[in-house]
């Protein structure tokens, strides 16, 4: 893992090159570091995150949603919830922000290579998983089966619709989508129900590796459904905590003795099963 700068707090400027609206609350942002060599040397793993700073507004961690196989840019998909995300949503193409990272461990590619994989995503949880999915698809022969379960609250919250369609059409991917409910005025002909209702619909053997990301309350239910079906050391969860530094100093993201930013954000179920306050 390479860090970009010696002073781990020092952001370096990057330019926003493309903004695509995803839903009412989420936008996809494409960035490029200003210096060509910096961009070319920028390497990361799916599941890692960057600290993005908008001067005056502050800094926030975001998962990289692009895949490291694309060298020319990197992408975030961000939900507007507060100060930094609000300012980011106001950003125009061509404007600059500061970037630090990459931080965190990322998904365990070594444990994934050659294996059959099930990806379970809830809401915004698809953002880091998209990086992994596209990585797998770009190196398709290195991985086994790929099954994707994805749920959102309502149809209009579905992210990356074009890509979902493309994945759906692939023979080497099984994609199941569900929504919690279909409010009036929205169209939907697919599954209705929380994401856990999709689990019994896919076939899995005990050696499947699961990769899960979603809102805090989702983990409990998904794990309960997977209990006994899969090996605990092969279930991986990407967790979110409050973060102020991203480098294990500020203390905010601690889960018991673990720091989400250093030891995570990706943990195996085995690792955190008995960790107080983890799930």
């Amino acid at each position, binding site marked *: 893992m390479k*860090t970009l700068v*010696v*002073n*781990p*707090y*020092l*952001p*370096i*400027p990057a330019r926003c090159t493309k903004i695509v609206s995803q839903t009412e609350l989420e936008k996809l942002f494409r960035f490029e570091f200003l210096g060509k060599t910096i961009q070319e040397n920028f390497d990361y793993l799916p599941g890692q995150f960057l600290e993005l*700073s908008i*001067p*005056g*507004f*502050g*800094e926030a961690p975001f998962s990289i949603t692009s895949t490291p196989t694309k060298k020319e840019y990197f992408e975030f998909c961000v*939900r507007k*919830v*507060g100060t930094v*995300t609000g300012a980011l949503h106001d950003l125009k193409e061509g404007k*600059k*922000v*500061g970037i630090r990272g990459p931080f965190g461990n990322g998904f365990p590619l070594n444990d994934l290579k050659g294996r059959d994989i099930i990806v379970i995503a809830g809401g915004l949880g698809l953002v880091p998983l998209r990086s992994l999915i596209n990585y797998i698809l770009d190196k398709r022969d290195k991985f086994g089966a790929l099954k994707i379960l994805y749920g959102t609250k309502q149809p209009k919250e579905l992210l990356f619709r074009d890509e979902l369609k493309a994945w759906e059409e692939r023979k080497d991917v099984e994609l199941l989508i569900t929504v919690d409910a279909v409010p009036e005025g929205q169209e939907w002909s697919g599954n209705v129900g929380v994401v856990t209702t999709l689990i019994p619909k896919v076939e899995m053997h005990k050696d499947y590796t699961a990769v899960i990301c979603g*809102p*805090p309350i989702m983990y409990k239910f998904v794990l309960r459904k997977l209990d006994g079906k899969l090996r605990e050391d092969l279930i991986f969860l990407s967790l*979110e*905590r*409050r973060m*102020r*530094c991203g*480098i*294990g*100093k*500020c*203390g*905010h993201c*601690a*889960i*018991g*003795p673990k720091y989400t930013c*250093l030891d995570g954000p990706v943990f195996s179920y085995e690792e955190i099963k008995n960790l*107080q*306050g983890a799930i």
Partner: protein
Amino acid sequence: MPLIKKQKIPLLVDKMLKKFDVIGPVPKDEKYVFSKVSRGEEVFLGYDTSILPPKKIFFPQEETLITFKKDEQLEFKPALEDGTPSKTDGDRKFVIFGVHACDIHAILTLDKQFMEVYPDPYYISKRARSLIIGVSCREPKETCFCGIMGTYTVEKGFDLFLEQIDEDEFYVIVGSDEGRKLLSAYPDFFEASTEETLEKLRKVLKEKDEKFADSVSITGLPTLLEQEFDSVNGEIWEELGEKCLGCGTCCLVCPTCFCFNVVDKVELSGKEGLTKRVWDSCLLADFAVIAGGFNFRPTQTSRIRYRIYHKLKYELERGGILGCVGCGRCNIACPAGIKMQDVIKKIKGE
């Protein structure tokens, strides 16, 4: 190994002031604080404890990390010098004179936190310029529990350590090459020790074990805590949670707490500003709130329990050093009268 007479210490400090900045315990409002001194006699070695620990010297309450400019170009610059004791003197070294053993232990845990994995240049810039001269405590204070934590003596983490062996005599223990150099730089102030003084030293140290050591010890504590988290005896936490005011002062005065928040500040012009860090506390209600308002530690009970686990268990698991050094500052500061040693005793069932 040498000896120093009590009355010579202010003179030594005066002399040191020519070459170093000196920071030591000085009286303030009937309490003590670590502060830069301009005369040797300001250093008050007989202090009980300071309101804030010497940690603030390496890791100030508020510290600018980055300055930024946003005109044509967006530019970020590190602000390293800010907050160092000798802002104007560039890399002048400074001596922290009169650090207690427990606080030296605490500095060692901070060193681990700030100097390993992503070394923190802000901490290091000040830490690397500091010399630490420790001083012993003669009596344990009611609020201290270094006896329980085993921190009333210290073997490393200082350049010199003054162990008081008599009303007016200190035995000087050398802890580093820098310390040795100090001794030879100021030969006039030190005397050679005799067999008699060594005898005194041994006696003092032995008496200390008797005076300070507590019948309660921390052995087995992490395992006990493991069981205590949600167990039937969880009432301990409920009780503490009801009492705790969530004022956060226990963390703010703690010599090993290191949590901070990061905030931006902009000039009126809107074109310049800075990013700074400010001490934070895991006992404040929104410490673990994430976007959307979800709070991972939603109750005061969960927050105070986390703090105690962090100090007595998690820190040990992470770095092999306990997160509490028994300095007693949180006991003194807590307006609710919550005392760490009482909690330890309760968990241990004593």
